[in-house]
């Protein structure tokens, strides 16, 4: 009725009709008669975003599948829209075009997406990212091409795009982890500024990523835990214990050092716990649960408890996850125990989940408060909840031995409750508890036997019968009587009760055949003609087993053993146990079943994959700009070291700003890049004209190649940026220490005060000589100080806290092996003599191919001295380079020989008493030379 009218009038009065039209779009019947004027309408309108069109689009998208030909009429308009100068029009044209589910236009869509992916406007690129999953679901064969687009968009640096493209990644190719490597650090850094929905998707993806790329931070603890547990439970098995202990010490010897990228992820997600969006908080919580070291997981508890104030649906999901967490890390939620107390107004499903959490949290110290709380719950009007409370009490009782008797007494009192459901539930729980120590509780069993006349709930009746049968020696007088009563009502019982009656009969027959022989026969006869085949079956089987006949088999001898064997007590455990193999917060975890499209959370790798895959290639122009030579005299100097300044020294002011931005990625550079740069620098030296040099503003840094490492990023340091380098100068207050030069830059608007070091956490033997406290650092200024660290000739990191008047930051300095030594000057003869002493085990030798650019001796010297703080030893032969140094802490000699051969081959020999240092050094120099 409306449709034809709307159709005819449409052209004259489009605007008036569309509300009517739209209100019918939810009706399922397709309005084909309306469709064609509509499509024409799309084409004829001049203004792209006119109001009518908006609604027509909704309609168009909704019915395109059913009216394909007509939908095609409108395509050309969108294609025109894609070229519009206004970015918003381009974006919405792409959005509608990609929403039309018609296979014929797949190539057009593909083209549009590809074009939009390289659009100037981030908003259009975002729309392109949204369009990818649409096209993928329409035509999965386009996957390969779409992955290319995803790869391109992943490299995008804007926050607008990040969330949408990761979403597309998750839908199209979630297993292509390799696409993430290069973008990992960028995603971590952008995360806080991405819109909230994107954050959830990115965090979930990064959780999976981190599981494949980093080592388990709890590896040592879990080993230790296991071994202690084993030792506790199986103390007689000493051999096993020893093995475990050995494993634990082995793990200790190999201390875990967290990958800085792993730390970056944890650090950058932490503020998001403060998000107002529950989904974001949950995503961070699961990330910490799955990835963080045990000591740090605790911080998520507070945020999760906060979510419990939210809508009941949110509570439901959060409690499910908390329940799983409490099983594995109980301590985390113990301070918040009271937040899980149940209110009478909570919906039943929430109450039951809270009970679960409370039960999981129960331990020796808090059990009395929890039990008191449970007592009030039992009086509730909500019967399902009461039943769950009784089960919870049962679980507490099994888990905590001290309160077992108290619980049992409490439950026995419940047997006189007026509500049958309560009694039945108590019976079931008591049965389980009694199985643990039946001897002491024969009076309870007697009490239960009396109850059988009153209780009607089948499960409870069955439980009582089983108890009497199992412990018939404890109640020898009552048991036959119960059987007599049950035989009378056998035909009217439920199936589970019948089965238990048969069981009871069989057990009594075996222990007390005189009194019960006839009764048993009677019951078995009744069962023989039962309707249920299970019961008939059981009766036949038991008769054969217990009643001796002439052809009874060998088994009947063992009947007593079969029926009256000691049965292990049941373990009452949480239904949430082991649910954590699903990624927390996921749909699959909630349902405890794999949902469609669920990506397994991978196990931690045994050994970490190469972390360098995450290094980002910095554009050459940037490198060149950032590392500027200080002057030719440096490269001529004896140590062959060069100097580059760490501060911005670019020629023009406009560039300097850019280069400051780039310092963020400085730590991401790899050695290869360093080498490239160094090479470039060298090339530049040769080409450089004196005039140019004088034009450069240079801060001359201390001698040696200055590679600045980042100690504290200016974002995490809240404006305080800290960099450090190994200045390679002797540390005068203590010659056994390595001098570390630290540069503080205050980027905030206010002064920073009292910069100092606190609480060094060092490996044994390591020492730190702190720099004197910096009293006041004005805003915008940089200060450089030198501190000394005795690394004990190991590459272990020195951890400490950097404190300002307001904040403390945990930082760590890890030295490259080459920085642990100082140059020693030796003559050729001395060198040979010393080398002779350090043969055999102390000599490490490797063959290598020199890199393309290692053409002459000069370059080799350059590279070796850049890698390690050594000095060159004069040498007669041109085909051999020798270097000498000693370790800073213990003064062991380090001798390096590099003889070169024709055709780029070379042999690298390192002689050092400290074999570890030698091995590490060989590795580093090899890498430097072979590039």
């Amino acid at each position, binding site marked *: 009725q409306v449709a034809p009218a709307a159709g005819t009038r449409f052209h004259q009065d489009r605007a008036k009709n569309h509300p009517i039209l739209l209100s019918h779009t*939810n009706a399922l019947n397709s309005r084909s008669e309306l469709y064609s004027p509509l499509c024409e309408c799309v084409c004829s309108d001049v203004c792209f975003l006119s109001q009518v069109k908006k609604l027509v689009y909704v309609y168009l998208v909704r019915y395109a599948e059913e009216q394909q030909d007509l939908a095609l009429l409108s395509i050309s308009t969108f294609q025109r829209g894609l070229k519009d100068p206004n970015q918003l029009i381009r974006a919405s044209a792409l959005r509608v075009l990609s929403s039309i589910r018609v296979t014929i236009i797949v190539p057009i869509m593909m083209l549009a997406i590809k074009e939009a992916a390289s659009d100037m406007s981030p908003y259009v690129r975002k729309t392109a990212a949204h369009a990818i999953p649409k096209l993928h679901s329409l035509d999965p064969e386009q996957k390969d091409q779409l992955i290319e687009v995803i790869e391109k968009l992943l490299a995008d640096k804007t926050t607008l795009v990040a969330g949408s493209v990761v979403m597309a990644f998750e839908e199209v190719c979630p297993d292509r982890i390799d696409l993430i490597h290069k973008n990992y650090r960028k995603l971590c850094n952008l995360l806080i500024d991405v819109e909230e929905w994107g954050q959830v998707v990115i965090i979930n993806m990064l959780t999976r990523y981190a599981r494949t790329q980093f080592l388990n931070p709890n590896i040592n603890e879990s080993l230790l835990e296991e071994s202690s547990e084993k030792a506790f439970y199986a103390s007689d098995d000493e051999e096993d214990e020893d093995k475990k202990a050995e494993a634990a010490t082995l793990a200790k010897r190999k201390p875990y050092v967290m990958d800085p990228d792993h730390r970056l992820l944890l650090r950058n997600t932490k503020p998001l716990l403060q998000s107002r969006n529950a989904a974001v908080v949950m995503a961070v919580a699961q990330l910490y649960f799955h990835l963080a070291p045990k000591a740090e997981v605790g911080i998520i508890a507070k945020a999760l408890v906060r979510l419990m104030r939210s809508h009941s649906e949110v509570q439901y999901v959060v409690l499910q996850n908390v329940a799983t967490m409490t099983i594995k890390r109980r301590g985390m939620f113990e301070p918040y125990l009271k937040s899980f107390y149940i209110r009478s107004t909570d919906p039943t499903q929430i109450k039951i989940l809270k009970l679960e959490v409370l039960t999981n949290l129960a331990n020796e110290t808090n059990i009395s408060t929890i039990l008191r*709380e449970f007592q009030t719950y039992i009086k509730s009007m909500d019967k399902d909840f009461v039943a769950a409370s009784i089960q919870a009490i049962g679980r507490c009782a099994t888990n905590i031995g001290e309160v077992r008797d108290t619980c049992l007494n409490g439950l026995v009192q419940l047997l006189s409750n007026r509500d049958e459901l309560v009694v039945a539930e108590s019976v079931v729980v008591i049965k389980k508890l009694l199985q643990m120590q039946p001897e002491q509780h024969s009076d309870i069993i007697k009490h239960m036997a009396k109850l059988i006349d009153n209780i009607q709930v089948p499960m409870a009746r069955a439980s009582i019968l089983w108890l009497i049968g199992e412990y018939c020696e404890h109640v020898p007088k009552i048991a036959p009587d119960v059987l007599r009563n049950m035989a009378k009502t056998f035909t009217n019982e439920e199936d589970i009760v019948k089965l238990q009656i048969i069981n009871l009969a069989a057990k009594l027959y075996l222990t007390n055949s005189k009194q019960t022989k006839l009764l048993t026969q009677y019951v078995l006869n009744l069962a023989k003609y039962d309707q249920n085949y299970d019961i008939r079956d059981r009766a036949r089987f038991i008769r054969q087993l217990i009643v001796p006949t002439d052809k009874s088999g060998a088994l009947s001898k063992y009947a007593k053993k079969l029926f009256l064997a000691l049965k292990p007590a049941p373990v009452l455990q949480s239904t949430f146990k082991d649910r954590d193999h699903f990624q927390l917060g996921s749909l699959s975890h909630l349902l405890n079943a794999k949902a469609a499209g669920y990506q397994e959370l991978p196990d931690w790798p045994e050994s970490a994959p190469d972390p360098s895959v995450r290094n980002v290639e910095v554009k050459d122009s940037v490198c060149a700009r950032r590392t500027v030579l200080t002057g030719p005299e440096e490269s001529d100097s004896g140590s062959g070291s060069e100097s580059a300044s760490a501060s911005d020294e670019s020629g023009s002011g406009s560039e300097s700003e850019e280069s400051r931005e780039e310092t963020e990625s400085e730590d991401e550079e790899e050695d290869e890049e360093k080498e490239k740069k160094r090479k470039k620098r060298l090339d530049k030296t040769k080409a450089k004209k004196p005039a140019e040099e004088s034009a450069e503003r240079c801060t001359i840094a201390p001698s040696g190649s200055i590679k600045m490492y980042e100690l504290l990023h200016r974002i995490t340091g809240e404006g305080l940026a800290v960099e450090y380098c190994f200045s390679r100068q002797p540390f005068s207050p203590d010659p056994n220490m390595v001098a570390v030069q630290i540069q503080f830059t205050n980027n905030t608007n206010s002064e920073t005060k009292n910069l100092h070091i606190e609480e060094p956490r060092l490996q044994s033997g390591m020492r730190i000589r702190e720099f004197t406290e910096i009293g006041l650092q004005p805003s915008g200024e940089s200060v450089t100080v030198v501190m000394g660290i005795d690394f004990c000739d190991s590459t272990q990191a020195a951890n400490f806290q950097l404190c300002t008047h307001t904040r403390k930051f945990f930082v760590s300095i890890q030295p490259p092996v080459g920085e642990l030594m100082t140059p020693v000057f030796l003559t050729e003869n001395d060198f040979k003599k010393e080398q002779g002493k350090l043969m055999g085990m102390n000599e490490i030798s490797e063959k290598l191919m020199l890199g393309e650019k290692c053409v002459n001796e000069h370059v080799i010297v350059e590279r070796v001295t850049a890698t390690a703080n050594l000095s060159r030893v004069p040498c007669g032969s041109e085909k051999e380079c020798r270097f000498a140094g000693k370790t800073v802490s213990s003064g062991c000699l380090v001798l390096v020989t590099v003889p070169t051969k024709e055709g780029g081959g070379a042999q690298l020999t390192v002689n050092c008493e400290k074999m570890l240092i030698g091995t590490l050094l060989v590795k580093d120099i090899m890498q430097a030379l072979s590039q």
Partner: protein
Amino acid sequence: MIHSLFLVNASGDIFLEKHWKSVVSRSVCDYFFEALERATEPENVPPVIPTPHHYLINVLRHRIYFVAVIQSEVPPLFVIEFLHRVVDTFQDYFGVCTEAAIKDNVVVVYELLEEMLDNGFPLATESNILKELIKPPTILRTVVNTITGSTNVGEQLPTGQLSVVPWRRTGVKYTNNEAYFDVIEEIDAIIDKSGSTITAEIQGVIDACVKLTGMPDLTLSFMNPRLLDDVSFHPCVRFKRWEAERILSFIPPDGNFRLLSYHVSSQNLVAIPVYVKHNISFREGSSQGRFELTLGPKQTMGKAVESVLVSSQLPRGVLNANLNPSQGTYTFDPVTKLLSWDVGKINPQKLPSLKGSMSLQAGASKPDENPTINIQFKIQQLAISGLKVNRLDMYGEKYKPFKGIKYMTKAGKFQVRT
């Protein structure tokens, strides 16, 4: 992600559906109706219901079920949070979120849903961006629209989506520049039979109504920021400044928004502003029960306790209650057994009380459960935790705004066990 959305009213009818990908048949909701039937109370429907091919995630707000259809793995909270955002948006647009309001504004509803999700992934959920795209209906506009046939779809392009502060539109103008902040604290407590506190905590929010011209940059500081134990912010708040200086620094969204919600650290003892003396007893054998309830103020810092409302779910065995309130009115619903007593203001000189008898089902045994008492109240001009705003400064604009701060304490989930 989110495939479709169905809106189901209290009587179990689907009155609106929206599909973002291909069309999913209505029959998928049958699984939801099954679960609805099984649940004893409306809020006991499980939020996630698996079906053979889809998963249904639903939220219940204003007696309407919002049922989202999901086809593959997605964090359930993601969907739940989004659905709540949809409801909040409807409320923002239409004032109320009822079936009638949605039906009246069906066009706007469809436009909103279309903009909020693209292919099932949230696109624009920020109320400011949406308002730029789709104008909220007003009486005048409705009249104009019916006459001229135009709609609420905005004429401008949604430039807000491109902005670095997506929560604020550019070019906002007001003649009166004002910024109001309400500090509202809620006490959640469970009080034991004997009157001792089992658990009590304070949750607070700061709701703001900011109507300022241009792009103001506000900072709000507290006298005692240490009180705040756990906070969550509106995205506009600069987290770094909070961490470093405990100052809220932000460019506010236009209009009403929740700036901050917080939890007061649990070490501090929570002042409980009211006490309840109760004597509810049933005697064995007789069909009568006694009911006595007296309320009194306690630790109110000299402020009056207002809008007190006491409610209690009496045991099923109670047939009727014959009570006598010293002030206010009471009602007892014999079907739901819900007793509620609207007390009003507590006068410390003359404490309000409710006394009388309950008649029980003849022959039935005495109920063994005792009802819990839920109390609601309000205290104006007081933040019970002692939180105080120090000052509010504005940067970036020249004019002088009018500033106002209001404190209020309310009962959250305040229960007394008997």
